[in-house]
């Protein structure tokens, strides 16, 4: 088709638009909500799944161990060494753990996030420092700092290299400044090298860069075999555990996440189709009002494609306006999500923004939607009976008859669409925040509870097993604080992390064998827990001094949830029942039930 026929169609479409912008804008707004939420979802998924921004970042993968019964399991130092020594599928492999340290400089103390990595992490990532060099000394005496920290605390002074800073009780020399934006692996400010067998790596991650041409499957297979050969008997992890290589942002989402994700996708798809059908109806109506003009174009020799083009161009105009408005909607939504979710975004490179890809997506989708919207009206326009229409004596050439029904429909759709967009943004927020992972009951107000995380990084404490003493001394001191009502310690990082990282243990009553379920989550606590969280026991008694210590012979006691009782001990007196916990590796531990409580947390 000749370009001047496009020009004619655009000229006509623009004149129609100028003549009655309301209906076009209405259509565009209707589309904008659909296109906007689709673009928002696209940007969200893109942002949350962006690979590590280092050269060939898609080859840099985490190695995780998956226990088929309990989900994720820890990678051990032994596994790490086995892989490092014997595996051939990677170019390099390194380990990293994170912690928070107090940094002391001449200007004062502040907390900073530190990454403890093996020395080969930096070459693995392929990121060059902006100033100086990578820290290499495994004794931790050298560190690299982030550009952000350098620019603020050290005022961008190049003489920072060689300066000593205090990290808790150690002194380290700054030897490098990492490039702007680099905060690997999460949102770190300081990098320190540790030996490959350092206990600091105990809760860390193993990172490997795959060789070109090696598939993840093949690498996972090799890693699994090496791991199983290396660990003959390991606490809590069965021989069926497998190693798996996954990207940093490829969380193994739980069912709730998947469900919400799919619900979002369906909602957005429905919204797009709904707005599409309404714009289609709008165009049909406009064409109906212009039947005579369409017939006239035919009489003057417009071929079917030229007639269709006219309607398609109008659809493109609405689609284009809708796309621009939709991109604006997505932009606002992303700004909102970025501000509300800033703390929930795990990785330093996660950006929820309308980038080039998102704009391209919005453009492509608008185009598709426009063609979709325009197809039926265009087809109907082509089928206009020119002879009959022109023979009719109707005088009116223009003047649009408006059927009120379609306007009611469009209005209803708009209202619905706004509601859906609000719901979608809400769902997206939920998706990222995962509030179900901290489920405080309604009766409980957390306002007066203060939580702190304790990590034993002094190797001596870990080695001689004096953790319990340290904790007891700490609790005593905390209780002595004025205003403290009660204090407790629990194992596991339950406030900060996810419910699924609790230890799962299978339970059996009496002598019955363990089932093959995934087990129930267990939280180890001190007696003060029940008081501190003001938990109302349904029956039985709270823990007390009798229950601590591990006198031989006395079974440990447990408090279980009402839900657990309902599921496992219906219609039976539950207090005092004995049950066993599967400790893995064939070991078991006997328990006696002390009480039931409401489901918490």
């Amino acid at each position, binding site marked *: 088709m000749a370009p001047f026929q496009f020009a004619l169609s655009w000229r*006509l479409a623009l004149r129609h638009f100028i003549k009655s912008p309301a209906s076009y804008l209405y259509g565009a707004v209707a589309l904008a909500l659909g296109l906007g939420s689709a673009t928002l979802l696209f940007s969200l998924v893109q942002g949350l799944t962006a690979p590590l921004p280092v050269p060939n970042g898609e080859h840099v993968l985490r190695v995780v161990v998956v226990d088929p019964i309990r989900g994720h399991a820890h990678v051990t130092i032994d596994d790490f060494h086995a892989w490092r020594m014997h595996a051939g599928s990677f170019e390099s492999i390194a380990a990293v753990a994170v912690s928070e340290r107090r940094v002391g400089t001449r200007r004062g103390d502040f907390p900073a996030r530190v990454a403890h990595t093996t020395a080969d992490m930096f070459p693995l990532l392929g990121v060059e420092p902006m100033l100086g060099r990578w820290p290499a000394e495994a004794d931790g005496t050298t560190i690299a700092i982030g550009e952000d920290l350098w620019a603020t605390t050290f005022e961008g002074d190049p003489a920072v290299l060689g300066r000593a800073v205090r990290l808790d009780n150690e002194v380290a020399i700054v030897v490098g400044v990492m490039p702007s934006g680099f905060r690997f692996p999460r949102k770190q400010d300081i990098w320190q090298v540790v030996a490959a067998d350092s206990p600091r790596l105990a809760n860390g991650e193993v990172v490997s860069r795959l060789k070109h041409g090696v598939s993840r499957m093949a690498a996972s297979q090799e890693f699994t075999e090496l791991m199983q050969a290396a660990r003959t008997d390991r606490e809590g992890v069965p021989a069926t555990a497998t190693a798996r290589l996954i990207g940093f942002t490829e969380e193994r989402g739980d069912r709730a996440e998947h469900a919400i994700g799919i619900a979002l996708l369906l909602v957005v798809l429905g919204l797009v189709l709904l707005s599409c059908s309404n714009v289609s109806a709008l165009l049909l109506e406009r064409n109906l009002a212009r039947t005579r003009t369409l017939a006239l174009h035919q*009489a003057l*020799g417009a071929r079917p494609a030229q007639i269709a083009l006219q309607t398609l161009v109008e659809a493109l105009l609405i689609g284009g306006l809708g796309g621009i408005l939709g991109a604006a909607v997505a932009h606002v939504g992303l700004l909102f999500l970025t501000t509300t979710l800033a703390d929930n975004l795990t990785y330093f490179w996660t950006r929820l923004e309308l980038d080039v890809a998102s704009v391209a997506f919005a453009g492509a989708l608008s185009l598709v939607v426009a063609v979709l919207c325009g197809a039926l009206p265009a087809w109907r326009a082509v089928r206009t009976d020119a002879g009959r229409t022109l023979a009719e*004596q109707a005088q009116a050439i223009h003047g649009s008859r408006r059927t009120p029904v379609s306007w009611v429909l469009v209005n209803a759709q708009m209202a619905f669409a706004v509601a859906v967009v609000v719901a979608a943004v809400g769902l997206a927020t939920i998706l990222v925040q995962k509030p179900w992972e901290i489920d405080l009951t309604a009766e409980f107000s957390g306002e007066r509870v203060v939580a702190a995380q304790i990590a034993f990084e002094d190797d001596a404490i870990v080695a001689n097993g004096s953790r319990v003493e340290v904790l007891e001394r700490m609790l005593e001191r905390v209780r002595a604080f004025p205003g403290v009502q009660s204090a407790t310690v629990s194992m596991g990082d339950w406030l900060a992390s996810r419910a699924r990282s609790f230890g799962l243990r299978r339970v059996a009553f009496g002598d019955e064998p363990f089932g093959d379920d995934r087990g129930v989550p267990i939280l180890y606590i001190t007696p003060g827990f029940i008081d501190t969280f003001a938990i109302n026991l349904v029956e039985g008694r709270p823990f007390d001094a009798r229950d601590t210590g591990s006198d031989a012979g006395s079974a440990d006691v447990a408090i279980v949830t009402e839900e657990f009782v309902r599921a496992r001990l219906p219609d039976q007196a539950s207090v005092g029942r004995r049950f066993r916990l599967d400790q893995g590796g064939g070991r078991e531990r006997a328990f006696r039930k002390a009480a039931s409580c409401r489901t918490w947390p």
Partner: protein
Amino acid sequence: MAEGVQPLIQLSDLGKVFYTEELETHALSGVHLDIDRGEFVSIAGPSGCGKSTLLSIIGLLDTATAGEYQLDGEPVQGLSVGDRARIRNEAIGFIFQAFNLIGDLTVYENVELPLVYRDMRGSERKTRVQAALERVGMVHREKHFPAQLSGGQQQRVAVARAIVGEPLILLADEPTGNLDSTNGKAVMDLLGELHDDGATVCMVTHDPRYADLAERTVHLFDGRIVDEESG
């Protein structure tokens, strides 16, 4: 007219039946009609006798249900929609009772439209449109929109649009029906001049005053040609 020269329009035993719910309307039956190049034919008859239907079929806006139609020696039954559109564009110029200018296009753009659909280059379009507008005396209004013109002026623009593509035949369905007598006469004079310059015209009119312009008048009654007179 010399023997053996093909008539421009050749209709033989043409019939048209409209099927509506429970009703068959025989709008045309057994119509034989030849129109030669350069002829001015007028079609007359009472309302509902099939005049507009006949013109629609001649103009390829509609198809006959029986009989044959040859345009410029070529049978046009069974042509594709696209081919029919092309022939309409190149061979036929329409003038309607209701002017039927496109309200969103200027006078110039209205006249240019058939040439745009013909994929003609811009410079050639311009000369042709200028010439057509000069022919009907509407050059000074080329930037106006139809709503800014009087009925007579609109019909003159419609005539310009019909002749701009130099069609084989002009089809006019009651071109004066919506005009007062002065404007009506002006438009008829214009058609007369075009005919004098060699155009083939086929016109439907009720108005006996203009019938004498035509060289031949075909009388239709109830879908059949009942009389032909040369005048």
